[in-house]
């Protein structure tokens, strides 16, 4: 089993379709890995072993011709799963069992996958370290004293540790890409509107997207093909017919015009990360692409814009957690107002309360009437920066994050520092453009470094082709964390 577990997803699914491989065996193997590894990684909030095995036996009995036939995977715990707890890593939803499946969950099921469980995250997707989970933090499989990144930290760690074949995450300002970079896997934030948000618990509705975390670019292309496409339940879902993403992976990027914004490799970036990005630039040149440095003049306003826009939307989106219809409610409340206030104060964590406060401030007419509107206008200018560059270039590259994974506890005391850490992933979210992070090296500690490949709206095909060509020309994606190999060794012993 060890060997096939490392194969491309397309290969594994083909073996399942052709009945050369049993889904039950695959799932049992995944559960055994989770059993061994997750005690140290803590990527899972819920493991649905019985459900997964039952589903596997059903698929084996009935056969499946899905694109992702038999693939064991897991989903970030802010994506609604009917009958399986969806907590958003919050005490507010600790016992909440949704009555419906997110559109992506239904699409993955139709494609033949097996859901193993739900993955840890920063509470309501607010944070970049997974330390804001109300239950426990997830650890980085490369070094368990480091954070896996966030907010999709559980998703990135589970893929890196080999507990699942792929995972779903969500990205509002970098929450797929940054943990993918920290954990040395591939994370794709697609164009806003390409994948239905129906069932994704809203953080900032105008920024939230769902995307895959995988081991390779090819795997990302395969999973994206299943997820993408219009959904009538999401009014912000684009009415386009997605192309074949896998066919885009030609390996040929000769003549592709690539821009590297100066602002992405300026002060504040870790020298190891900068070196890795420059090394990547050399690889692209060797592959026949054309690279120029460009400028994104409104980049420096991205973090401020993001924290005003995202927090404002969040303050409204999280108002529904009031203890009335579902979720936590404090006992012994003295009247309605007391119930509301104490429930929300007890059940929301500190970071969530901080963002609600910030967003409420920004929207309130009592303080700065224009704050939110000002941010929305600056957002337009940031999006225009991207359009201007994309008038002349096909692709933008840059680092995913200013550093590799940091030690647990290092940043938590200072929220503003934590926010500024998102500086390279936020602009793409504001502009709504697709961006993919893939491994491009390591820092001095050996922790993975991520390269970001950014494309025009709905040009995932270009992003994937360029990223794939880079991946095939390098060996970064073949490095595996020791903890993952430890499982393989254990299995060999047995």
């Amino acid at each position, binding site marked *: 089993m060890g060997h096939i577990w490392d194969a491309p997803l397309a290969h594994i699914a083909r073996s399942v379709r052709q009945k050369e491989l049993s889904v039950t065996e695959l799932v049992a193997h995944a559960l055994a890995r989770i059993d061994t590894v997750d005690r140290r990684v803590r990527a899972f909030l819920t493991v649905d072993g019985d459900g997964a095995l039952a589903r596997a036996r059903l698929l084996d009995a009935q056969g499946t011709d899905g694109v992702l036939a038999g693939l064991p995977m897991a989903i970030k715990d802010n994506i609604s799963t009917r009958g399986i707890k*969806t907590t958003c890593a919050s005490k507010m939803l600790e016992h909440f069992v949704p009555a419906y499946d997110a559109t992506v969950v239904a699409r993955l099921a139709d494609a033949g996958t097996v859901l193993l469980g739900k993955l840890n995250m920063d509470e309501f997707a607010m944070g970049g370290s997974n330390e804001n989970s109300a239950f426990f933090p997830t650890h980085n499989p490369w070094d368990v004293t480091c954070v896996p990144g966030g907010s999709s930290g559980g998703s990135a760690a589970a893929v890196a540790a080999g507990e699942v074949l792929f995972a779903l995450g969500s990205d509002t300002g970098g929450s797929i890409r940054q943990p993918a970079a920290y954990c040395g896997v591939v994370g794709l934030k697609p164009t806003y509107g390409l994948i239905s948000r*129906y069932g994704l*618990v809203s953080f*900032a*509705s105008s920024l939230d997207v769902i995307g895959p975390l995988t081991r390779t670019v090819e795997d990302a292309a395969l999973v994206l093909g299943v997820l993408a496409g219009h959904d009538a339940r999401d009014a*912000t879902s684009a009415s386009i017919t997605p192309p074949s993403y896998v066919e885009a992976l030609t390996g040929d990027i000769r003549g592709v015009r690539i821009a590297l914004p100066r602002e992405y490799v300026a002060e504040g970036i870790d020298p190891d990360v900068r070196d890795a990005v420059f090394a990547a630039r050399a690889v692209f040149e060797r592959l026949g692409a054309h690279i120029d440095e460009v400028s994104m003049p409104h980049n420096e306003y991205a973090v401020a814009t993001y924290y005003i826009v995202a927090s404002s939307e969040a*303050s*409204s989106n999280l108002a529904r957690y*009031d203890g009335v219809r579902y979720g936590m409610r404090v006992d012994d409340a003295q009247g309605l107002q007391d119930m509301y206030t104490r429930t929300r104060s007890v059940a929301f964590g500190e970071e969530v309360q901080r963002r609600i406060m910030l967003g409420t401030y920004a929207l*309130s007419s009592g303080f700065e009437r224009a704050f939110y509107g000002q941010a929305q206008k600056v957002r337009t200018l940031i999006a225009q920066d991207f359009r201007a560059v994309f008038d002349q270039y096909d692709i933008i590259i840059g680092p995913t994050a200013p550093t590799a994974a940091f030690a647990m506890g290092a940043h938590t005391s200072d929220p503003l520092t934590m926010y500024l850490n998102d500086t390279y992933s936020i602009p793409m979210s504001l502009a709504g453009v697709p961006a993919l992070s893939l491994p491009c090296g390591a820092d001095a500690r050996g922790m993975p470094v991520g390269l970001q490949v950014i494309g025009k709206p709905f040009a995932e095909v270009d992003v994937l082709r360029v990223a794939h060509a880079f991946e095939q020309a390098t060996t970064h994606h073949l490095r595996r964390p020791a903890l993952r190999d430890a499982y393989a060794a254990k299995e060999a012993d047995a």
Partner: protein
Amino acid sequence: MSRYETVIGLEVHVELKTQTKLFCRCATSFGAQPNAHTCPVCLGHPGALPVTNEQAVLLALRAALALQCTIPPVTSFDRKNYFYPDSPKAYQISQFAHPIGRNGVVEVAFGRTTERIRIHQVHLEEDAGKLIHEPYRSLVDLNRAGTPLIEIVTEPDLRSAEHAKMFLEQLRDIILYCGVSDGKMEEGSLRCDANVSLRPIGATTLGTKTEIKNMNSFRAVQGGIAYEVARQTALLDRGERVVQQTRRWDEAQSITIAMRSKEQAQDYRYFADPDLGGIALSDQLITQVRDALPELPLAKRQRYEQQYGLSEYDAASLTAHVALTKLFDEAMAHAADAKTVANVLLGDVCAYANAHDAPLSTLPITGAHIAQLAALLAQGTISQPIAKKVLKQTLQTGEAPNDIVATQGLTQIQDSDAIDALVTQVITAHPQSVADVRSGKTQALGFLVGQVMRASQGKANPALVNELLKKRL
């Protein structure tokens, strides 16, 4: 005579006639078990998203156009944030920045004069749920949450409680004509709040206003505003000031009661709902909806008077009900006599509907039927009493008057010889009555006419009967 001018603006909520809620596919019908018509979307469950109901937008557009509003190229939704258990998401999806209509006007007849009442805006929004308050707890039913409404906000153009009521009645008629809503105040599909203030006659700035809620009938609207005008007049006369607040009309006591002070405006933190994109309203769509608008009540009423020479009373009575005007217009399309059609509709048809407690629209009669009946009468083919019989049968069975008359041989007898034969029979059979008539007791003549009619089974031409009888006596 009061020293103050009354200034009234109304906020009218109209429930739209749709199958489903504004942002989800739950049914809008009521009377069900509490929370039976709810789903993850209208309950605000985590991750559920709204999608706009096309029909609700089209109905709102129709209403906005009927109220002569300016329509924006793009209309969009905003969130109005507030916490209350009847609001599942803790925000109401409403329209703030780009409502579906602005700067409209309604022409309203106040007796013989017509005034233009300006409409500030028309916007779409979702309704809230219902709370049942008990001493130690409240019960929440969200069946109504998410039902589509339009809110029609007038400028402060109304000057008396009576005018406010008349305006509201005529606004309701417009809404009914357009098929936008059931417009039933008692059932809550039409709701009205009033902003009332006073100012010294001649002043141009507005005085401090109060908002009156819970007026559940047209009578209540008039009563609530009149009470409030009197209350504010008394305050001002005593040299006290009016406090800006929301007051509730208490029907039983016929007074308004303060609910909460509104000196500090609520901070609703409006912003564009990022779950819903803007909706482009193309010129083509606007033209299409405008062209499909029915003729509105006031215009229709004036046309009935001018084109058909109907009395003010008949024109007003006909236009008071959509179903009546429909039948009238259909009948007139067959070139019927207007006065006859109006008499038939306002007389026997309405009486039949009332007697059977059946809405006009459910009766099997058509405008073509009425036109036939009118023609039969005008041509003298049938008599008035036969017409009543024929109409009754049409109302019961939906058979066409022409067919009824033909198959039952009800054609009026115009033949003098045939009638004269009947007259001879009656005179012979009732010598005492004949003697009475001859001695000057004219009411006996009526009896004899009736007997002749009866003998003819109602088919004899009554004028001819009269004439022939007189000749013989």
